């Protein structure tokens, strides 16, 4: 393990001062579609989480003492800007909370603030990622209902991941985020920006020096993270291709076209069969039957696509972002180690200021040890959580596929039954 340079990605460390993350283009609709199924009681909130078969999941649900929901996005229009406010509702039995119920309004920026604070305090813990600022490939309709809903769900997941984390859920910042009616005064406090700058500078300095040697377990971790990130990106792309409209290179003769286009073509059958049915006498019934079958099957297909978009796509995308988070965490850990090593070397080589340096080295050594332990502990937790989440998403997708085929099967079987009933008999049964 010879030392290799740790590239410092400044964007991760710099506080994002960009104010237009959640700026709205003029939306006239300010309300969510009616019939929002947000639960209002802790017990019904429990149903929101996928009840797992494995023990850990069960345990988590049983001992959960804080429940957070994100809902009711509303456009806010001021003189300067337009943005979306989300309602955050907290129900808890924890003693360090003054009350058992809180309702506050937060915008995307506030979530960003929370996350950066959490990362600052716990640089080597794996803090769940937020949904992206912008959606990919310059989609024009970035602030339409679908986008807002997708973002809302991701924000909801984010807060729930934090509340499930054994360390992060007890963070002071988290509590403030959930409870303070006005977050603004809290956001201005603390070292915040300046400390981040300092950290960045140090990071630069250390990267120049490079890392002496990475402990075995972290080297393995790094390798895994790189591979995992790679696989998640592939999965994400493949799923997008199945669901959304994306074409492969124009060179390919058979471009891999999506479910959406399949359904569009499928729908064309129906009016043609209907037209044919009008032309015939004896065949009118079966032809109309065909038309109806096609309509039903295309409905099922559309529902299926919708489900994939709502469950599988966001899950995979989330873990693409997680992979990036992991990389950042690894880098920060590396930097902490690098800092220690730098100071340690200074201690060993310089003859003067030994006492002062020794103190500093000790502090850094402690810091490093704490960082490593945090990461080690959190790593296992994250892996379990990842497995649970992705497994659940895949199972759900597989189930939906089975359901889709079962429904289509029923459609065609009933068509068959109706035809056999009409015909004069003598048809053989089909296996």
């Amino acid at each position, binding site marked *: 393990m010879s030392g290799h340079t740790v590239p410092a990605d400044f964007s991760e460390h710099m506080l994002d001062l960009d104010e237009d993350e959640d700026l709205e283009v003029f939306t006239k609709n300010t309300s969510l579609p009616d019939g929002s199924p947000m639960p209002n009681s802790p017990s019904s909130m429990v149903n929101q989480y996928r009840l797992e078969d494995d023990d850990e999941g069960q345990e988590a649900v049983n001992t959960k003492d804080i429940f957070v929901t994100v809902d009711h996005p509303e456009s806010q229009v001021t003189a300067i800007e337009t943005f979306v406010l989300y309602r955050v509702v907290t129900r808890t039995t924890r003693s360090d909370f003054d009350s058992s119920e809180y309702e506050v309004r937060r915008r995307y920026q506030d979530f960003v603030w929370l996350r950066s604070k959490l990362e600052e305090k716990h640089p080597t813990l794996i803090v769940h990622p937020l949904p992206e600022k912008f959606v990919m490939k310059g989609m024009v309709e970035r602030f339409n209902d679908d986008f807002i809903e997708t973002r809302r769900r991701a924000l909801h997941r984010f807060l729930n991941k934090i509340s499930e984390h054994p360390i992060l859920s007890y963070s002071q910042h988290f509590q403030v985020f959930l409870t303070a009616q006005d977050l603004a005064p809290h956001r201005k406090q603390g070292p915040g920006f300046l400390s981040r700058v300092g950290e960045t500078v140090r990071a630069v300095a250390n990267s120049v020096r490079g890392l002496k040697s990475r402990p075995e377990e972290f080297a393995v971790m790094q390798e*895994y993270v790189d*591979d*995992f990130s790679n*696989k998640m990106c*592939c*999965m994400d792309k*493949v799923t997008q*291709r*199945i669901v959304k409209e994306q074409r492969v290179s124009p060179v390919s*003769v*058979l*471009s*891999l*076209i*999506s*479910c959406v*286009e*399949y359904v569009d*073509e*499928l729908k*064309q*059958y129906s009016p*043609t*069969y209907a*037209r*044919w049915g009008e*032309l*015939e006498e*004896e*065949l009118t019934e*079966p*032809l109309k*039957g*065909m038309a109806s*079958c096609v309509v039903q099957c295309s409905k099922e297909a559309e529902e299926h696509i919708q489900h994939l978009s709502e469950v599988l796509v966001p899950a995979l995308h989330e873990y693409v972002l997680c992979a990036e988070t992991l990389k950042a965490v690894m880098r920060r850990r590396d930097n902490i180690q690098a800092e220690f090593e730098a100071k340690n070397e200074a201690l060993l080589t310089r003859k003067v200021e030994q006492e002062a340096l020794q103190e500093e080295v000790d502090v850094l050594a402690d810091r490093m040890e704490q960082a490593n332990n945090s990461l080690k502990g959190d790593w296992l937790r994250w892996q379990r959580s990842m*497995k649970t989440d*992705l*497994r659940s998403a*895949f*199972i759900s997708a*597989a*189930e939906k*596929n*089975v359901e*889709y*085929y*079962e429904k*289509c*099967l029923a459609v*065609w*079987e009933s*068509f*068959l039954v109706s*035809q*056999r009933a009409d*015909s004069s008999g003598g*048809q053989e049964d*089909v296996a």
Partner: protein
Amino acid sequence: MIIETKSADPNQTIFSALSCACAENRQQSTLPAQLTAAAAAVLWQPITMADSMVERGTALLRKLEINVAEAEKRTGKNTVNMQETYTVYLIEIRPAETEGGTPAAPDTLWRRYSEFELLRTYLLVTYPYIIIPPLPEKRAEFVWHKLSADNLDPDFVERRRVGLENFLLRVASHPVLSNDKIFFLFLTEADSRLKSLSAMFRVKNPDKRFTALKQYSDELNTVISQLLRIRARVADRLYGVYKVHGNYGRVFSEWSAIEKEMGDGLQSAGHHMDTYAASIDDILEEEEHFADQLKEYLFYTDAVRSVCRKHELIQYELEMAAQDLVQKKQQKEELATGTVRIFSLKGMTSKLFGQESPEQKESRLAALEQSIQEGEETVKEKNTECQEFVRAAWDDIERFKEQKDKDLREALISYAIMQISMCKKGIQVWSNAKECFSKM
């Protein structure tokens, strides 16, 4: 006609000999000329099809050069007021020889395939004893794995252009057809008299059943064609969806290598994804069978159509014979009574040049009487022929209808069975995959 052969070329000798034989047997006078041309061809440079037709030297082709030069896409509203895209072909007419050597600008006009069809039908009816040259095929085949497999495909259009040019040249080089006025107008006048013509040669009292049958046949043709087109596109898309899942297989497999707990589950799920992706090939092949069954009835509609046309022809002949008879009877009446009811040249001449002698009148009356009798015989014959045709044809049509209903119903049922099989395969694969995920 004796041709002295100077060359030792065996082909030329044969052609020449044939040429003499034909002349002796008093075949069509053009045949020896054609053989002579062929003989000449063997000796001298190779000649194109067009050239060889020109060689046959109809009056028309001596005057004009005919080309179908280009093809273009157009969009417009069709007879049922639906938007459609079709191809038009450019007919170019040039004077065959120009004095002074400068080629004249061609006269051009655009015509679509259906207009060619109309012309051919007109020729069929007008010259029932002549073998009318065929048109190139109406539609492209329905191949699902080609991207553009329809009448607008450039290769198909090009082949059709050549075929249409060929058709025009065949007609233009035909000793009888080339003199047809309507054909000439087809080449030269944009105003389509053919449309009104088709009303002209249509029968006056069409059998309603046949009219309905023809209409049904045309509509069935349209509907099945459309279905086959849609089917090709759907198959293409479905293929894509299934094959993309093959990517899942690959990624799962690679991913399983880096996971400890999830590894096995991912690996086996990946296999199922591969199976799923591969299953589409069999599925689509089974579907081809259904497409073939539809195609058979698509081609059947052409056969039905031709029976309807034959009936039209027979009916038309009957009506012509009857009309002819009526005319003759009227002439006789006029002659007998001396009154001119309808304008006729004969009537006019007798007025202008004086009455004819009683003997002349007698002989003319007798001739007419004879003609009328023959005419009545003809009408009787044609009538019987028509009735026989209708009876026999309609028998077969009823049989065909029954067969069609039975066949197509069975085809639809087997399509449903196929869909069920496809669904069952899907359920199987995804249930297996779900199990693998559950075990992760």
